[in-house]
């Protein structure tokens, strides 16, 4: 296991990457990306078995990750680049013409690390179930991870997939919900309350673990715990409480930074709060 302090340093650099990417293009989704930086860091730099130097779509004998809420592409791209899937300098091309770093992630331009397009919400859990079943059929004992948004839980397909995974005991699947409580139009509780999500997933046959997604030790501990539950007949749902905009004080606490970019002054202010640890690209 990586040292927690080291993971925190990586997460800080990832947060710098996120605000710089979105600032440069004046386009993108910084809020949710910042909130999930700790989770992505723990997953890719500590938990998953993968080979970033030799990306293969089939991912045989590797753990797989799917991002269902594709709009938080900045954190995904930063993590993939920092992990070595593609040059860090390529983050400069985020959302630009002729870039592999499309607004929402896609396999279309063969960007290493991406296994399915996402952006239109509600589809990633189904894809992850398929990939998990594929691993079972091949006696590949590696795991499948998927991250979803909380607002995304309003999509009907999510519940088709939740029903399938619970009923069919897809127990090599670890799904996480970024429960930051915000969506474009406002607080999830105002736009369309989700009720007791943990109870709903439990009723669908899932093992549910709730944790603080902005406490690196808690993130690592939860992912470790989830691994011990694999193969016990239930898919797992990690209900991850995060703060949208975490790490940048003025981006926290509201839905306002879901999909807008910081100006020059705001960028400087944000970067002053985030330690440069691995070196800016």
């Amino acid at each position: 296991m990586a040292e927690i302090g080291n993971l925190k340093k990586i997460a800080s650099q990832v947060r710098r990457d996120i605000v710089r990417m979105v600032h440069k293009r004046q386009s993108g989704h910084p809020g949710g990306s910042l909130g999930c930086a700790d989770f992505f860091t723990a997953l890719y730099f500590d938990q998953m078995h993968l080979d970033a130097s030799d990306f293969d779509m089939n991912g045989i004998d590797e753990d797989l990750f799917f991002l269902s809420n594709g709009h938080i592409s900045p954190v995904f791209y930063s993590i993939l680049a920092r992990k070595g899937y593609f040059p860090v300098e390529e983050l400069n091309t985020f959302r630009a013409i002729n870039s592999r770093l499309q607004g929402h992630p896609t396999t279309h331009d063969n960007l290493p690390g991406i296994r399915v397009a996402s952006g239109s919400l509600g589809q990633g859990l189904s894809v992850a179930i398929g990939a998990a079943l594929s691993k079972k059929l091949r006696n590949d004992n590696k795991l499948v991870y998927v991250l979803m948004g909380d607002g995304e839980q309003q999509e009907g397909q999510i519940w088709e997939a939740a029903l399938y995974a619970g009923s069919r005991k897809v127990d090599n699947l670890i799904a996480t919900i970024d429960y930051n409580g915000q969506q474009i139009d406002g607080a999830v509780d105002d736009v369309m309350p989700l009720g007791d999500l943990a109870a709903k997933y439990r009723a669908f046959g899932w093992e549910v673990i709730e944790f603080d997604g902005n406490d690196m030790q808690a993130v690592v501990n939860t992912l470790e715990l989830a691994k011990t539950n694999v193969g016990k007949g239930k898919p797992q749902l990690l209900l991850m409480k995060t703060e949208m905009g975490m790490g940048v004080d003025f981006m926290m606490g509201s839905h306002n930074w879901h999909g807008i970019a910081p100006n020059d002054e705001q960028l400087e202010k944000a970067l002053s709060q985030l330690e440069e640890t691995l070196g800016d690209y």
Partner: protein
Amino acid sequence: MKYTIQNHKDTRSGFGDGLLEIAKENENIVGLCADLTGSLKMNAFADAFPERFFQTGISEANMIGMAAGLTIGGLIPFTGTFANFSTGRVYDQIRQSVAYSNKNVKICASHAGITLGEDGATHQILEDVGMMRMLPGMTVIVPCDYNQTKAAVKAIAAHQGPVYLRFGRPKVPNFTSVDAPFEIGKAIKLIEGADVSIIATGHLVWKALEAAEALAKENIHAEVINIATIKPLDEEALIQSVRKTKCVVTAEEHQANGGLGDAVAQMLAQKMPLPLEMVAIKDVFGESGTAEELMKKYGLDTTDIVKAAKNVLKRK
């Protein structure tokens, strides 16, 4: 008639039998079905390979997403449900998770068109070919009989990339050669003729042959071409035919908007503009009735092809 009816069989049985055969040869074939295993004739496959069959219940969106995920690792998923639920209901899932993501999913769709019959317009999709044609990278196949459907299943299993395979419910004349290989993207000239090209797909191919026979009695020699692959369209074969005949009738069990006629018209308008008539559904929904009654009422019968041929000949 140059062609003889070997028997009357449904094209969906061609799918089911083809799937079972190819699954025996290729262990990467898996099947998914959304509560229509019997209707899709997938039971034999499901019984023979229970571990490779995924019953999703009535959740088509999840089924398409799961199919996309199953490709990761090298499996070749075949999804099965009615054409309506295979396309319109799950268009966005196909668009993002399958087509844009270039996943090797075979979307197999039964009960297409009005020949679904008594269930009525809610289930009689007549827009599916158009929707699938519009997706970049999607191959669209509509075989004409049992034998050709069975052959098409084997061909699409060997093809890398997303495919939409459309077939139907009723028992129809089975007349193509039992051992004819299916070549994706190749038109098949069934009858040679110099006066008019009849370009047909699916259940309308047999009717086109009947129409050609009727026209021959009036000394009109129709060339009949079976287009089983609507996308990519065999442009070369079609241009070769119309260069000779100088006029075209298209025939299909689909809306004129978006279907085979649309594809042929679009191509010819750019490369060889010639008089063209479409035998297709004209911007209306279907209704309940027997398959044959509906084909008559909605203008998709042999006599409608004959009439269209005579009309287009006048415009030469």
